[in-house]
């Protein structure tokens, strides 16, 4: 029996328990995805999670690390889980495999495994797929109730495993709405319409755009919002980042909307469209890659919100949570360094703008990579 070191009091938190809560909290959003977009999501989850666990185990074996305790921490599972929730429901199976294994190997273990990675692994996997397979990655089905050809359980399996979703003809038929028009996600739809010279009110008249942001998507976002509030309440995540993300989006979209409501979306639409709530509460709050200081969390979250709306509005992609998160991940060592809280008994924060501060940044990055 080895001698223990203080504190001896029973510890109230564990990584596994935190990861478990993250998964539980995604359930309302997941249910909405299942209801509106069919069973494809389920297969994505199963494929991604098994690939993640297998890849993690293999890499740990290669790195001669203990396998069981690290698999059991649940972090690889959560990475895969969040990635799968962000993927289009009928993505060919091998793309899910590619994205997940890339996330685990290159975004996580190349940096030294859990706790050492600079970039959010799920978002690295997502962006790899998005820029490699733009067609498949933007093939979102219309919500089941609007679809001309709703996809059933068996159909979903066959599309995912035969790769039919890469066939433009099949994709077209899947994307067809009851009214015969091809449908995309609300954000995609608006972007296309604007590009064709329509105004926002005209673009919003389509069947896919209704309510807060659109049939299906508003409920998915409400679901993730509800789960996110559970995480906040359970203190699994801090409140600064999600609030700051939403605030950041509002900061850019509100002035734009007031300046020209024909061209720019209402802030509420941004808040409930695309991956906003999943991003704000589940992705941006990844502890490893987010800023850890109280002020830093604000800056990090605001940055994600601002960049997301800027790319959605002026960039080439309909959604941008993944890009925004990765861009802000890069700034974290610097943010953390310049937002040190004032320590008890000290007058002010140290290291502002000194040369020493510069050295610190680089070494902070090194320190993160070192292990």
């Amino acid at each position: 029996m080895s001698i223990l070191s203080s504190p001896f009091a029973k510890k109230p938190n564990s990584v596994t328990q935190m990861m478990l809560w993250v998964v539980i909290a995604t359930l309302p959003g997941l249910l909405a995805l299942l209801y509106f977009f069919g069973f494809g999501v389920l297969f994505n989850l199963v494929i991604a999670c098994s690939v993640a666990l297998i890849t993690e185990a293999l890499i740990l074996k290669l790195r001669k690390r203990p396998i069981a305790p690290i698999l059991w921490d649940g972090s690889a599972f959560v990475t895969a889980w969040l990635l799968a929730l962000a993927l289009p429901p009928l993505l060919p199976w091998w793309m899910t495999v590619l994205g997940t294994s890339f996330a685990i190997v290159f975004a996580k273990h190349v940096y030294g495994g859990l706790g050492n990675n600079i970039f959010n692994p799920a978002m690295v996997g997502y962006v790899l797929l998005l820029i490699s397979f733009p067609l498949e990655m933007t093939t979102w089905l219309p919500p089941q109730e609007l679809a001309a050809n709703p996809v059933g359980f068996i159909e979903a399996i066959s599309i995912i495993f035969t790769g039919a979703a890469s066939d433009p003809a099949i994709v077209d038929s899947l994307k067809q709405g009851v009214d015969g028009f091809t449908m995309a996600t609300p954000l995609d739809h608006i972007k296309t319409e604007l590009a064709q010279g329509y105004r926002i009110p005209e673009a919003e008249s389509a069947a896919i755009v209704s309510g807060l942001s659109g049939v299906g998507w508003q409920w998915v976002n409400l679901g993730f919002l509800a789960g996110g509030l559970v995480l906040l309440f359970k203190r699994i995540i801090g409140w600064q980042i999600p609030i700051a993300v939403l605030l950041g989006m509002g900061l850019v979209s509100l002035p734009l909307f007031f300046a020209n409501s024909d061209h720019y979306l209402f802030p509420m639409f941004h808040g409930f469209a695309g991956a906003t709530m999943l991003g704000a509460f589940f992705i941006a709050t990844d502890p490893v890659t987010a800023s850890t200081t109280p002020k830093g969390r604000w800056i990090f979250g605001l940055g994600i919100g601002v960049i997301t709306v800027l790319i959605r509005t002026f960039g080439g992609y309909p959604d941008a949570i993944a890009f925004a998160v990765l861009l802000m991940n890069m700034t974290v060592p610097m943010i953390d360094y310049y937002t040190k809280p004032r320590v008890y008994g000290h007058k002010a924060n140290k290291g502002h703008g000194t040369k020493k501060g510069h050295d610190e940044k680089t070494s902070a990055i090194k320190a993160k990579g070192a292990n």
Partner: protein
Amino acid sequence: MERSNFTSEIAIFEIPGGVHPEEHKLQSNQAEIRRLPLADELVINLKGQAGNRSLPVVSVGDKVLKGQMIAECDGVFSAYQHAPTSGEVIAIEKRTIAHPSGLDDLCIVIKPDGEDTWAELSPVENLEDLSGKELSGKELSREKILAQIFEKGIVGLGGASFPSHIKLKQKDNIHTLIINAAECEPYITCDDKLLQEHAEEVLKGAEIISKLYHDIKIIVGIEDNKPKAIEALDSARKSLELDSIKLGIVPTKYPSGGEKQLIQLLTGQEVPHGKLPADLGLVMHNVGTCFAIYQAIALGKPLVERLVTLTGEACQEPGNYWIPFGTPVHHLVTATGSTNPKRLIMGGPMMGYELPNDQVGIVKATNCIIMSADGELGMDKTALPCIRCGKCMDACPASLLPQQLYWHAQADEFDKAEEYDLFDCIECGACAYVCPSHIPLVQYYRYAKSTIRNNRIEKSKAEKARERHEARQERLERVKREKAERHRKAAEARKKAAAEAGKKDAKKAAVQAALARVKAKKEAQKATDDNQDGES
């Protein structure tokens, strides 16, 4: 746990961070204070305080009386030690001491004679029968009080064992005495219980301390989870007519009893980095210390025992006991009828340490012994990597970034750790308590601190060695230079002498040469003449 309804009499400020571990105080604060039978032998650790080891003044075979001085102070932070009971010194040898290292150190071992006979006591003045008001009005000599506190071996009983008279020496600008009764660590209830049963003596002790500073303000800082102690304080204050003492009731949160934290809670001020509470005009003493000071001044009793909380699920008779110093822990286990504790913790579950064995004797800093049952305490499973969740940062009462300190400490980047204010860490353990990866963070900080301290010592040693070396080099250089200079001068002198000698020689030579020439001429002349004579 029950909270007191008593409203604080002074404004209470906020402290950042802090945690709320399970309190476990009801186990030990129900029973009245008791005594246990004396142990067969008392092992008095001579390194039982902050500074140097005390020096024994008794020898093996000596008979000692209770309260007789057995070891004297060695250096500034050391303290006198007194026999906790009457008996015979049976050994002065190395034994395992109460220290996280589990190392052996010199101890005086006393075999009690069972009589418990006191040596003659020498109070400064008999103050026992004085009412609070009389005490308050009484003139006492500052020097005498300080000398008595020193000679009676009184050290801070809150945990640091810092000699009290040193803390009390500074007198300028002190305006407030804070009595620390917060007792924020789970399980421990000895301060709570001491106040419940001896509040008057504690307040009288506080009054004596305040006399050292011309009757300064007295505040008692106490957590609201001690309703009975608060009541006892209030009624003691009334019966002693010491109404000027104010009660500061702080919310129960660990570590509100840390010196810096309690000051922040009660005054809203922070002790500036590198400064002492005295620089803010504050002096803080633990309730146990106040009690001990009262006993020393009014009754002449040296510090030979203290109140210790014996608790934990394996303890059969949990409660608070007057324990003579040196009582081995195994005696406490058996005397309370406890069986097979899984682990023995000295101190609380947040800052205490596990004892290497049960032979260790109680020291002045021992406020609690936890005899834990299987599964009672958190077992450290394998630590997982840090996920930078920042829970530690939210829990840190000093507003440090524990995750950054950990990064740098584990990478041996000590300069970086210092840049993140490692030395402002009070090692309260709140960070490690909330860490979901169960990383023993405090261990890393202790390791980094001790390495930095050692490096500093090494560095200053090396610096001194370098200075000595340079001084030597310089001396040798100088000697060489001086020698060379001397040689040069000598050579010059010689040259000069030689030159001068040469000059003289030349003159002489010239004269001689001239003489020689004249002589030769003369001889030549003579020869010619002779020849001429011969020819002629």
